[in-house]
């Protein structure tokens, strides 16, 4: 069926202790043209790891025996492979530790398969981006114009260090703007980001999300200084970003 040469499908390692979930997830991801190998616990995953050439790991944090966090820690000593964590509801601490260990994203169980797919694709795309240099260690905070974005906790702090809650879409949008500070983000790039988040028409959703974000950043919509509108349909974060 494959007549045209195409890049080999990304190879994903799924680690979950429930056999049904492993098999269903493998079947689901394979239908989306991924190659999937599964492991039922950390021991099996360690055994498979060396000869798999995996591009991404989906890791359940609640594993019997050696826990998911310990495995993630070990994995980080081996490679910078992106990790998407599956966490239990409400277990904030595990999630934060996981993100601090360098996991790239997380979903809490029970998750929607399509959302997992979107996250996997987003992570793979981010890693594949040529201008994205891999970080040696996870970033604790991104400072810009007095504000602080903490990726491990997915939160924004205002200049007085008070948390400013953001919706999921606003957060993703802000991360994208901060990641590419002083570079214009086209509408298409933003559309890509918001897809799957909003139920409404995407075009309008971007303007709405930007205006909400400006309001929360206390950036006057008419004379916006922080998130500037670029003629021709794009936005740019006009601020120096420092990473710590």
């Amino acid at each position: 069926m494959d007549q045209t040469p195409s890049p080999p499908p990304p190879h994903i390692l799924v680690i979950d202790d429930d056999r049904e979930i492993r098999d269903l997830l493998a079947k689901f991801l394979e239908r989306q043209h991924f190659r999937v190998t599964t492991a039922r616990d950390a021991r099996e995953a360690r055994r498979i790891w060396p000869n798999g050439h995996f591009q991404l790991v989906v890791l359940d944090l609640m594993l019997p025996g050696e826990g998911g966090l310990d495995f993630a820690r070990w994995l980080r000593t081996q490679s910078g492979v992106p990790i998407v964590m599956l966490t239990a509801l409400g277990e904030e601490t595990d999630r934060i530790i996981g993100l601090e260990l360098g996991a790239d994203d997380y979903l809490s169980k029970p998750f929607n398969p399509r959302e997992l797919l979107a996250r996997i694709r987003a992570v793979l795309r981010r890693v594949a981006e040529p201008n994205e240099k891999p970080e040696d260690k996870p970033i604790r905070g991104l400072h810009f114009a007095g504000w602080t974005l903490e990726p491990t906790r997915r939160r924004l702090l205002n200049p007085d260090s008070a948390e400013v809650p953001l919706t999921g879409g606003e957060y993703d949008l802000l991360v994208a703007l901060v990641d590419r500070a002083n570079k214009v983000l086209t509408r298409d790039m933003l559309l890509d980001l918001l897809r799957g988040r909003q139920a409404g028409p995407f075009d309008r959703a971007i303007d709405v999300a930007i205006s909400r974000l400006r309001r929360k950043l206390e950036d006057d919509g008419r004379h916006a200084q922080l998130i500037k509108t670029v003629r021709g349909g794009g936005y740019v974060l006009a601020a120096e970003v420092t990473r710590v």
Partner: protein
Amino acid sequence: MTPGAVRSAHDNDLSDARPVDAVPPLWRRVLRRLWPRSLAGQTAILLVMALTVVQAGGLVIHAMDRLDLQRLAQTHDIALRTITLYRAVAMAPLEQRAEVAHAFDVSNDSSARLAAGPPADRIEPTAPPLERQLRADMLLVPMPMAQRPHDEVFLGGPEAGRLVMGLQLSDGRWLNITSPMPQPRPWDSTTFLIAFLGMTVAAAGLTVWAVRRLIRPVATLAAAADALGRDVNAPPLPETGPLEVATAAAAFNTMAARIRRFVDDRTFMLSAIGHDLRTPITRLKLRAEFMEDDEERAKMLVDLDELAAMVSATLAFGRDVAGDEAVVAVNLAALIRTVLDETVDARPEAEALLTYAGPEQLTVRARPVALKRALTNLVHNALNYGRCAHVTLTPPLGRVVTVLVDDEGPGIPVDQLDQVFQPFLRLEGSRNRETGGTGLGLPIARNVLRAHGGDVTLRNRPEGGARATVTLPLPA
């Protein structure tokens, strides 16, 4: 609470509201107004009253004693003066006797007169005890036996205000001496009054101090019970103090421990159920992806989302509200905006039904995830049962910030305004599954807000619809 219990409580309210025919008399109403409601106040008043009575009694006894003493001294004084005068007159030559008597006449308001007969004042004869006393006292002054009065007449006494004594001289004439003898008045003494007042005030002060000291454990117990109501993990009472107090504190602590164990068991059970349900729901969601029929698949995913939401709500309710989330500074205005925006993201058709009024920046100290869940529940509740949600953030008044969530629905029956905060209860009108909900939204909201030191209450707005009033304390 059973419906029957609710009805009877309601009936009691009505009977209380009925006008009372007989108005109690004014003095009773005044007394009721003045009567303190606290145990310390009542005990103190009773003790002070009893002490005052006892003290007054003691002082009366003391005064009577003084009275006797005063009278004795007065009698003695009069007797001696009289007999001294008599001696002076009796020793004087016959022709000078009137002069000597007259010379004494001027002193001490008393009068002495030499007369042919005994005193003829129209007053009662002296009481026998007083008379005996006077005779005895008069014998104290030495005098030759022949010179002593031949006859003696005693008239009057303290009741008459004066004492009249007639003493017959050896020449047959009478020396009649009138001495003032006022009623002793011990109550007139200023020192007495000051002493009485001073002692009363001191006794009252000591009583109030002692009672407050003794009653303090009761107030501590009440505070502990209140704290336990807000937080099951409130620290135990110190089991010290008087025996009864220590016993009560120990009993209270045992009860608190039992409640804690019960809550822990329930929490553990709910968490276990919640955790166990996650795996099958995840499997079902994956399986749904393999369904051929797009419409059926979409419906199934909606069902599964609802199921997941219920599990999540159950877990949130079962978990200790304080959880492991830290209290941080958070912009409450942005949090409310986020709640509304996320609701719109999930249900775009609700956009026009959700409004926010208030500042864009107001910092409180809170657990953001828990607080967001509480406010989300209130907004969803208003939207589901009241058609819309108008959120108002009022600038802080004192140390409290208020958030109002208004809707335009049918409101809530008055007798159920507080019941809706009970877990798994849904009002009769909304028991159908159309509107969804777990019956945990409002209880979770109340748990979260109370754990923050605030609260949420519901009432019906006069212009229609219900209003949820959220209060949150501001950092000091």
